[in-house]
């Protein structure tokens, strides 16, 4: 493409749109009415990303873009795939918010501005190939999301969740920043490709070459550099694991999810997660997952991630079992879903290994991550949307008890909720099935049968609490005198749900096609990261 700035289009649309929304909000007399424009902004960003897709298939163009943007942002198809996922999630949740905020008398214009800027931050995070850019993106989205969490100003719970999220988020951001600083100190680079290339070279000290004891001194320097690098990587992983809500960095999730207004919860669960996982994909697999180079941390960090993955699945699912609130259950289950995605991360760096079938397995695992994110976005937005639709002001659907007998009272709402819950549980022919199927398949192909087994067992546990929603709705009657959820009437949410259900089905019926797009996305991802060809690493790295 000639005009490289056009690559920025998705992000620019959101930023300019966000400012415009602020102005409109400031000058319009009555609150409200901003939901549809905001959603349209998101969809326009998605369309822009879609339009850029053909232009991101060319390695030469990508390299030029890489140079033009100083290696800060990558404009490959991975970014575009994530951009589309983010914009879709953001747009759909905004549509949900439009009706939700009006119904619950929360309509204030800044919600839409915040969500738009947060989405822009998400896109920056997803495309970042530089640690500074990554941090800016992360903070842009985080600040927006903190405010969204505390949006119900009158609710103590909302304030509490927001504050906790903010405090712990700062902690995690500090960890990430500290890790980045150490990496910079050790390599002199903040861009990921530079870091990788620097780590691929042995430490050299021409200034003292030939002097007595120089060799030992260099060896010590080498050891120090590698040790610090490894610890810095752990810090970066921890910072990102916080954002995706992985155990043991998950503690904020239930409080924040429960406190936030439900559309904001949906936003956090899908969009923020997609962006953070995208960043992880780039950092862990793109840079430190290169198993051929001596800089590879591939041996070390999958072992680390296995723990995160298995613990996330297990704790997320078990705690979700014990919940009496559906919203909280969805929060914990999102931790478990994060675990499934992390399982694919474990597999991905096996790309070049002897057992892995020459790169295709690693790529199929990375594609499984992208596909899962898209699948989870549509399913989860649907589930939260149906939950929103099932309640009205003063009669919200929050706990299982609220939903009792909904199947008889409001079959259409119950049907919608059941459908999305089944997709989350992984029932064919919904997309949830194929999302898990891809993870399991790549785990088996890469020679991690026990990890596949862990995913299967945990999915089975998950089915239990997902089906409980349906059991409550269809087989239980409400307690006499108890508060029952009364569905609101909202054409906007209904339309959103129909569109989402269509996507869930379409993805589930044609998984190959969308998985193919994901695969295309990751196939072209490796190229732009290596901005400058690395020097041949010396054989005696010690």
């Amino acid at each position, binding site marked *: 493409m000639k005009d490289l700035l056009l690559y920025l289009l998705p992000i620019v649309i959101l930023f300019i749109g966000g400012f415009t929304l602020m102005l409109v909000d400031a000058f319009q007399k009555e609150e409200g009415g901003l939901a549809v424009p905001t959603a349209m902004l998101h969809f326009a960003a998605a369309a822009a990303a879609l339009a850029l897709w053909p232009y991101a298939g060319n390695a030469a163009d990508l390299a030029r873009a890489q140079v033009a943007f100083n290696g800060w942002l990558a404009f490959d198809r991975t970014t575009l795939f994530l951009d589309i996922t983010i914009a879709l999630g953001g747009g759909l949740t905004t549509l949900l918010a439009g009706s939700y905020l009006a119904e619950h008398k929360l309509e204030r214009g800044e919600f839409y501005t915040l969500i738009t800027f947060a989405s822009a931050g998400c896109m920056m995070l997803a495309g970042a190939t530089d640690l500074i850019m990554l941090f800016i993106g992360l903070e842009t989205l985080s600040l927006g999301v903190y405010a969204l969490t505390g949006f119900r100003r009158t609710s103590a719970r909302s304030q509490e969740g927001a504050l906790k999220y903010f405090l*712990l988020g700062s902690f995690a951001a500090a960890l990430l920043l500290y890790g980045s600083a150490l990496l910079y100190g050790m390599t002199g680079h903040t861009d990921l490709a530079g870091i990788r290339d620097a780590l691929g070279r042995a430490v050299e000290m021409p200034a003292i070459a030939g002097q007595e004891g120089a060799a030992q001194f260099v060896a010590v320097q080498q050891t120090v550099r590698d040790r610090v690098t490894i610890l810095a990587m752990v810090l970066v992983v921890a910072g990102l694991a916080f954002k995706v809500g992985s155990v043991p960095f998950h*503690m904020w999730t239930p409080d924040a999810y429960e406190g936030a207004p439900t559309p904001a919860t949906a936003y956090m669960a899908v969009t923020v997660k997609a962006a953070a996982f995208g960043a992880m994909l780039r950092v862990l697999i793109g840079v430190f997952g290169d198993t051929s180079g001596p800089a590879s941390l591939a*041996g*070390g960090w999958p072992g680390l991630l296995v723990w995160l993955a298995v613990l996330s699945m297990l704790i997320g699912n078990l705690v979700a*079992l014990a919940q009496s609130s559906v919203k909280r259950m969805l929060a914990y289950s999102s931790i478990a879903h994060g675990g499934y995605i992390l399982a694919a991360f474990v597999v991905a760096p096996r790309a070049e290994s002897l*057992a892995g079938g020459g790169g295709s397995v690693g790529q199929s695992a990375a594609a499984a991550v992208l596909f899962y994110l898209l699948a989870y976005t549509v399913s989860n937005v649907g589930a939260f949307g149906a939950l929103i639709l099932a309640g009205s002001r003063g009669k919200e659907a929050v706990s299982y008890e609220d939903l009792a007998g909904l199947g008889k009272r409001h079959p259409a709402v119950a049907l919608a909720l059941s459908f999305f819950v089944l997709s989350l549980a992984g029932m064919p022919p919904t997309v949830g099935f194929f999302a898990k199927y891809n993870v399991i398949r790549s785990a088996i192909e890469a020679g991690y049968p026990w990890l596949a087994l862990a995913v299967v067992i945990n999915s089975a546990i998950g089915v239990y609490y997902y089906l409980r929603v349906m059991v409550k709705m269809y087989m239980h009657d409400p307690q006499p005198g108890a508060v029952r959820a009364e569905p609101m009437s909202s054409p906007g949410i209904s339309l959103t749900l129909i569109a989402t259900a269509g996507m869930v089905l379409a993805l589930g019926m044609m998984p190959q096609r969308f998985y193919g797009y994901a695969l295309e996305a990751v196939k072209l991802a490796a190229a732009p990261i290596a901005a400058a060809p690395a020097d041949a690493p010396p054989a*005696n790295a010690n």
Partner: protein
Amino acid sequence: MSAVISSLAQVTPQIGNLVSAHPDRYFVLGLILISPLLGAIINGFFGKKIGREGVYITAVATVGMSFLFSLFAYFTLYKTAHAPVAEGAAHGPAQLSYVVWDWFRAPVGAGTVQLKLRYVLDELSGVMLLVVTGVGTLIHIYSTGYMSHDEGYARYFAYLNLFMFSMLNLILGDSMVLLFVGWEGVGLCSYLLIGFWFTNTQYATAGKKAFIVNRIGDVGVILGMTILAWKTGGFEFAKIRDALNVDGSNALTALNEKPEFNDVVAYFLSFGRTDSKVFEFWMKVIPEFSWGGAACFFLFVGCTGKSAQLPLYVWLPDAMAGPTPVSALIHAATMVTAGVYLLCRLSFVYVHFPTVMAIIAVIGALTALFAASIALVQNELKKVLAYSTVSQLGFMFAACGVGAFSAGLFHVYTHAMFKACLFLGAGAVMHACRDKQDLRDLGGLKQFTPHTFRTFLIATAAIIGTPFVTAGFYSKDEILFRALASQNANHAWVGKFVFAALVAGATMTAFYMCRLLFLTFWGEFKGWSLNKEDYPNYVEPSHDDHGHGHDDHGHGHGKPWDPPHENPPVMYIPLYVLAGMSVIAGFVGLPYLFTHKESVWGQWLIRSTEHTGKPITEWNLVMTEPRVHSAEITAMAAGFAAFAIGLGLAWWIYLSQKGEPARKLSSSMRPVYQLLVDKWRVDELYDFIIVRPLRFASEFAARVIDRWLIDGLVNLVGIIPRAFGALARKSQTGVVHTYGAVIALGLAGMFGWVVFLPTAAISARADGGERVTVEVHGGPNYAYAWDIDGDGEFPAEFGTETRQSGTCRKLESPDGRNVCRVSVRVRNAFGHISTISRVIELPASESGSR
């Protein structure tokens, strides 16, 4: 019929050319499929909005369109099959297909299989397609009359359309996966329609029973499907077929392998008593089962569920709880024949396994006999027909079991016509008589419902095999003949046994069907008084407002003295069509004896179902005139005798003697009669040996395991958030500290992991012989010491090479495989060391020691 087909095919050549130009893009198949789905969606979601008329039109039009498209597709196929080919060129397979899209990839065995959402129309699916859409359309039309007073009409037609869609998936799907999707879909619709009047607990229970019994069969289908795909490397029928048709086919070798755990199975089946006779027996029987045999057997188990064969037939008689058109469509004409279709579809696999074929033939024959014996004494119209269906399905399976797949399918086709006619006729009788269906209350309907009577008579004539003029005669004759002529390679007695059992079954069929006919339509009507003179207020019922009822709901109106009335034309016109088909359908399968050439039917299906040179169809090779003639004459004579004896007996007992001999016989042979009335008490037996233990186990699970174990676990887990909840109540800030502490702890754990526990991903490759290559991936500044030969000693020096080749030492693995163990010591950047090792399987062939 063939003449009709060919003349029509000549009319449409241009269009045919146009459409069949792209073999994989024959979109008419897509239209056939999507049409009923559209109907289901419209009726399911907007049924209430478009009203009764709208629902009727939608349902009938969509299925009718599907039928028209099917006809068109079939003629195109026919034309393709009979297209002139170049001199000396072999005729290619007649096949039209439509790829909707790539579906997904699945790992199978060593490789990966790309599954497509692909539908195929070939000879086999072609005839099934016509049967399903044709009968389906007629029954949809009939249903508009039958359900005209039911509140749930929209739901009913939505289910019925959905059923058509699922059934078409089952028939047209080109892979076992797609077939299974349809298989489950029809099962679901069957369940929904059996329990259609779910407010009646008994009906709902019948639906549940059908569902559960079918699940047992489905396990078989999944197992069989998986084994077959694993051993042949594909899910697509065409792929499996091609893999098997190669000379010295690897797939066939793989299928003929014996599982290594045969003796383990024998051990369990004899309850661990290896010195017992039981164990010896199993050890003798089980080795006959190769992987392929097991796959075929498991698939057949699935068929016994779906197609109601012994021992899983129990759901079908209960399934008559559904509306009668449903019984006609799903539980007589189409869905229950899916098992036969599956066997025909995979006939090229089955012919390799004579023992499994023998099992199928014997089960089929026994079912035919067994169900017919129950039907002899049942008193409910639909019950008799239900057992008759089970029995006729037994005929079809027996035919498949003796290798006469085309004959089995021929019977599927003729049976669909006359059995649908009989069921719809029964529905018409019930509709006319206010849901009375007890034979003891009926009688004399000849005069009240003339249309129903005529069609019922013709269909009965067909099912009892009235010689030379009905379809049932030709299809049954073909089965008997092929059974008699067959020679199972492993069990030569099977053919004769099946023949004898089927002749006996045919005799009983003739008897009970005539009994049904005579008791319903002859004699005096006993339902309620019919004397118009007794009722001064008697009003001739008009066709507009007379009482329509159905199986469950009584008539809301209508006078008690109203006589049974004939039904509206929408109900009897389909009956006439089906009755007509019951007669003419047979002429496509005229026996060899008459024409001295292969019948039109046999010729059409020869590629799909005849596999000469395989053990089970060996007779085909030795088919010589005198032998064939003698067998055919014997078979025809036996069939004729069965017809004559059954009809004569029924005539004598129920027409001449007004049922007196039957009463005498039943009282003099009380125990036998009672046993038959109680359906051999199979339900009670199942209740005792399966249902009760299961119920006990599930109660145990619910009371003990669920309440104590699961709930305990859940409660235990619940303590975690509750503990935090408790903290939260005490102090707001304390919690964040706790959260922060957990993060810090987690971080410390991660540091500990990377510092103290060096890990590396290890992968290995066998290079042939005992050479192996091992590769590890650690991190920066990692070093490795190798022990390839497995002697447990590592070099003192660590190196940075991440790949090492060497000769390893073979180990004796308990299951006889060649394996060896390689180990690597890993030292990480922090100087900590750990050892990782991996067991590698060596190729068996090159070492030569196996």
